[in-house]
């Protein structure tokens, strides 16, 4: 079994294909890198070889988008087996997945779809998280997703549902501050209630990304700089949880690497400032 080292409580960036060659060449001073697990569900080839080379220089986190922890369908054993094989090869510092569903009756929608927040969904998600943690032999980081609808019959507030998954399974949380902000605006709640409900000891990583505010809902596009109110919420999160590994994600209209590094530097400034304040 791959030994897992914790991610450092500093800023990292999501590594996407357009930046791989430059990262290998220039080795930018960044604390760690995160990749989408499924992009490396391959049998061989240059992309996997590049990740192995990068892995020698940086802690790497494997971030999944397709395991579908919340599907009424059974877990896809092939998907889990590929994740396990990749983890054995890369020995990641963290493995994460989303609190969502993405397939039904064997048909995949390849998107992060929202769960109804009720006892049935909670029990199913907890079973799946248990199964994945057992298969991987290490804690899974579970990420809250952005959503554009909710269900009338929900019996949990989102933050209570997320906290319950962590408490019942012992999984860690990948706390996406941007998604909290997006949902707060889309569904009309105070993001501070969300923060207050999350057990800080369970938070093992934080995500920050940009959204699209041009329509009637905020859309979590990962295609822009982090918005000012999200930076404010991030600072509150670090004040509450302490310094946590923080990832800048950018997935559409991917800019030059230095733009990502600049965003990561902003997160690092918050982390350093609050760490110094604690130490003083």
């Amino acid at each position, binding site marked *: 079994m791959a030994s897992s080292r914790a991610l450092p409580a500093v800023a990292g960036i999501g590594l996407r294909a357009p930046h791989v060659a430059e990262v290998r060449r220039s080795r930018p001073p960044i604390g760690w890198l995160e990749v989408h697990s*499924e992009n490396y569900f391959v*049998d061989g*080839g*240059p992309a996997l070889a590049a990740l192995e080379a990068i892995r020698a220089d940086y802690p790497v986190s494997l971030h999944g988008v*397709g395991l579908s922890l919340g599907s009424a369908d059974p877990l896809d054993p092939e998907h889990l087996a590929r994740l396990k094989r990749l983890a054995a090869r890369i020995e990641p510092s963290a493995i994460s997945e989303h609190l969502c569903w993405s397939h039904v009756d064997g048909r*995949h929608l390849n*998107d992060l779809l929202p769960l109804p927040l009720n006892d049935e969904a909670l029990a199913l998600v907890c079973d799946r998280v248990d199964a994945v943690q057992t298969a991987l032999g290490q804690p899974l980081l579970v990420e809250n997703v952005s959503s*554009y609808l909710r269900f009338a*019959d929900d019996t949990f507030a989102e933050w209570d549902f997320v906290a319950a998954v962590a408490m019942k399974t012992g999984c860690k949380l990948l706390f996406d501050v941007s998604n909290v902000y997006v949902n707060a605006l889309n569904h009309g709640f105070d993001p501070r209630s969300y923060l207050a409900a999350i057990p800080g000891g369970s938070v093992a990583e934080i995500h920050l990304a940009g959204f699209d505010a041009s329509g009637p809902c905020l859309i979590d596009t990962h295609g822009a700089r982090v918005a000012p109110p999200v930076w404010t919420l991030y600072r509150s999160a670090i004040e509450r949880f302490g310094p946590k590994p923080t990832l800048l994600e950018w997935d559409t209209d991917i800019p030059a690497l230095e733009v990502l590094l600049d965003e990561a530097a902003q997160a690092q400034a918050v982390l350093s400032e609050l760490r110094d304040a604690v130490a003083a």
Partner: protein
Amino acid sequence: MPSLLEIQRGMAATIFGDDAALVALGVVAGGISAAARIDIYRNNVLGNYRKALAATFPVVRRLVGAAFFDAAIDAFVRAHPSNRGDVNRYGGDLARFLADYAPARSLGYLPDVARLEWAIDQAGIAADAPAFDFAALAALAEDAHASLRFVLHPSAQLIESRYPILHIWRVNQPDGHGPPDVDLGEGGDSLLVARGEHGVGVERLGPGETALLRALGRDAPLATAASRANQAEPSFHLPTALRRYVASHLLVAVRVQDPFVKGSPQ
């Protein structure tokens, strides 16, 4: 209260256009209608597939234009739903779909171009293979030579078409500047797609090489494959071809088939 399975079935159906399934979902409206909320997911889901498949099939997209491509992908997604959580491996059926897609009926070469692009995409992620083991070849007894099998690199694929798809593919690269017109009367192509030291390559094969590689790919012994090649192309020179294939890492291993145990590698 609908069950989790009912909600997921209903939401998937609604996303793929069954508006009647929306009501039972019990979506909270709150400022924006439930239908508009589902529209966001529909746009995300279809947009993801359009983007993912545009990355895999850039030449098909350039040949038909963005609007035609997007409409074709939307129809493809409904006809051949994804069956994996890994969208990178989705699209293998696009060529077959395009062959029956009425709006593309006049573009006979399009499915073959899609097959070529899929082969290129898959060659990039196929398994790696160790360097050719000459010692193993030298160590074989001479009477084993007739039943010798060559193992092709896992990325290797033969793509045959009655259209000049290599020419079409070359002049329709997404960043290409040349005139994209190709005379379809140029004749067909037999292409080898394989990953070598410098990445995935596409090369045109003559009839002898095509016959040889087709036979080797079907696990025929070397002697059989060589005689097929000579039938297809009387001037075919086996040693030259083999030397080139070993150098380019297309042939990665040899093995001798036990004639009594079908399919068992030595």
